[in-house]
């Protein structure tokens, strides 16, 4: 995937400037309160470089990075870099906390599940065929060495964008005292309240028509998960792009969009993803987890 690696700065109608770039197949935006257009450009470059760096590092569409080496190791051990090791530690903890729902190796299920809007729901046999290649419990993670059975794959896509937003924000606040908002395709984080002390007003994309609902964000982050555009429809049943790695089945009856507000974009993203994996019990899961969330069915 070749994306234009450029940063642009545009004046906003209400004053100020926004820095824009594209990364991880999403439009990204950087807002900084009370600084010049040049400063916005400089800060956006810092954000973009960091997001692009993470994209390069963990993209599964490249053949020159750690993810490619892991996925093509053919059962041999792979020594990973420090940042990847930290992420694998995290994934391992999430796998435990989520009772196996959060799984970096679930991407193999895409071989049988193709969410192209058709009715081609895989058969039980097809799923049973790939399921042995899914499951973090099959992976041997002895930091910094990862050993994975041949044919298995890992994929950081589920949470990589949220992680990139958080990391870029941490970098950029070292560079400016001004309030910053970073938004990559609806996953966003802010450095704190705006210059006047007010909350940032964030529009959330939902399946419903009409103006996007607005969520105030004085601090922290918002991440959203949903299947608005990616699902299968067969015999009146909607099969969302939400797959339970334990069964290989799509999770039915869940909400279409969930927005979670949390301290970091990564945490918000994990909560939203796990809530979707709870299907019809998404609301209960969010409530039990004391998550600050909005759900659209």
């Amino acid at each position, binding site marked *: 995937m070749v994306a234009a690696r450029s940063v642009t700065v545009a004046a906003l109608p209400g004053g100020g400037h926004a820095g824009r770039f594209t990364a991880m197949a999403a439009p990204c935006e950087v807002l900084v309160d009370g600084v010049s257009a040049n400063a916005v450009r*400089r800060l956006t470059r*810092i954000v973009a470089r960091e997001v692009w760096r993470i994209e390069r590092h963990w993209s599964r569409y490249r053949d020159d990075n750690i993810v490619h080496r892991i996925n093509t190791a053919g059962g041999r051990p792979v020594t990973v870099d*420090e940042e990847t090791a*930290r992420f694998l*530690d995290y994934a391992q903890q999430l796998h435990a*906390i989520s009772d196996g729902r959060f799984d970096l190796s679930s991407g193999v299920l895409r071989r049988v599940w193709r969410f192209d809007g058709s009715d081609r729901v895989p058969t039980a046999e097809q799923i049973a065929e790939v399921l042995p290649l899914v499951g973090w419990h099959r992976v041997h993670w002895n930091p910094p060495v990862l050993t994975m059975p041949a044919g298995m794959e890992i994929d950081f896509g589920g949470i990589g964008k949220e992680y990139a937003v958080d990391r870029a924000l*941490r970098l950029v606040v070292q560079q400016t*005292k001004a309030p910053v908002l970073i938004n990559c395709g609806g996953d966003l984080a802010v450095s704190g309240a705006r210059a006047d002390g007010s909350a940032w007003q964030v529009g959330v994309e939902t399946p419903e028509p009409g103006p996007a609902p607005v969520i105030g964000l004085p601090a922290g982050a918002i991440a959203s998960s949903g299947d608005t555009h990616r699902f299968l429809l067969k015999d009146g049943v909607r099969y969302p792009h939400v797959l339970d790695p334990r069964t290989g089945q799509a999770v039915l009856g869940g909400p279409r969009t969930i927005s979670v507000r949390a301290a970091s974009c990564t945490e918000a993203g994990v909560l939203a993803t796990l809530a979707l994996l709870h299907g019809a019990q998404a609301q209960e899961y969010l409530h039990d987890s004391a998550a600050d969330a909005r759900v659209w069915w």
Partner: protein
Amino acid sequence: MQLTPEEKRRALAAATLTLLGGGLPSAQAEDKTWDIDTAVMVYAESDNRVQAVEPVLKGTLNLGAERYFTAKLVVDTLTGASPNGATPASTPQTFAGPSPYTADPNETPLDDRFRDTRFQGVVDYQFPLSDMDTLGFGVNAGTEYDFVSLGANLRYARDLFQHNTTLSAGLNFESDSIDPVGGIPIPLAVMRPASDSDDDDMNGWRDGSSDSKTVTDVVLGWTQVIDPKSLFQMNYSLSRSSGYQNDPYKVLSVVGTDGEPLRYVYEARPDSRSKNALFMSYKRFVFGRDVTEISYRYMTDDWGINSHTVDLSYRWYFGSAHYLEPHLRWYSQTAADFYHVALDDGEESLVSEASADTRLAEFDAVTAGIKIGSAVPGRGNWSLRLEYYQQSPKLSGVPTQAADGLSKFDLQPELSAVMLTMGYRFTW
């Protein structure tokens, strides 16, 4: 793992913190860019007085992480004539010096030897101590034909209340040495007449030495973001100068009761000066587009000078990338206690301090100007500013016995000047 949902949430939060907190990648090597500010100012006073051309080159290197290195060079080329302090006379007046000069009858005597090139250089470095504090320091040096100045400054700023408030403190120190042609004149000594050609330095009673002055300034500042559209700023400064304060080329006329000069004496100012100044400014964005600013400055010193400055400007953005900025400044000051237009015969032995420098006189001044410029983000931007300055002196310090005699002269003519500044700013 048998955890309650709350425990799971806490475990998630803790794991996320560990993930994000670890090994923060060092700020990616940023482009180190220079912001270059260039300007040329042309200044011309009326009646062929002082003319100046002043090119300025300033570069700020952004080192990343809010660290800035600044270097600035200013060159001033001055020519023309400036009042030497003497009053007009009914007959031509000739003043001594390496190149004696003469003033026509009824004309304010101007010293036309006023010709100098000044160089001034500044280097400065500013960096954050934390997210909340910034430290800056700089050194500067200036030279003129007969003058050398060395200075250093240290600044500290601290942000409070989510960066909405900034408190700052600064300390400046400057040391000047002056070595005028023929040496420092003895204060209130008589300037030798031009006809006295035996005088080796041809400049009267000068003791042949140089002298120096030190200036210490303390500045306390408060900047407050009132709301996203407005900003208030207040500074208090205390300046203490000690050492040689005189202008070695300035004299006073000692006049008879008819107002005609008997002789000239060199000026004598106190050997120290303390100034207190308070500055307030309010800046506001209006119509989501323009910027207006109003400021006021009050200064008072122990020489008896009190001044008020009110400054108004409005920056109007028109089109997509240009602005027009009208500017108006009003200034008023009282005279120094020792300001005299001239001295009565014998008064020079009664006073210990005296100066006829018009800059120490009571006057009002108005500056009106307009600036036009471009403001395209990320590109080179130019500006052009034209200003007109009009000084209106008020007569003060007239010697009592010669008041009638002097009344036939225009003792404090008005001064006007035009300033044109062309600027170009770009990133390199």
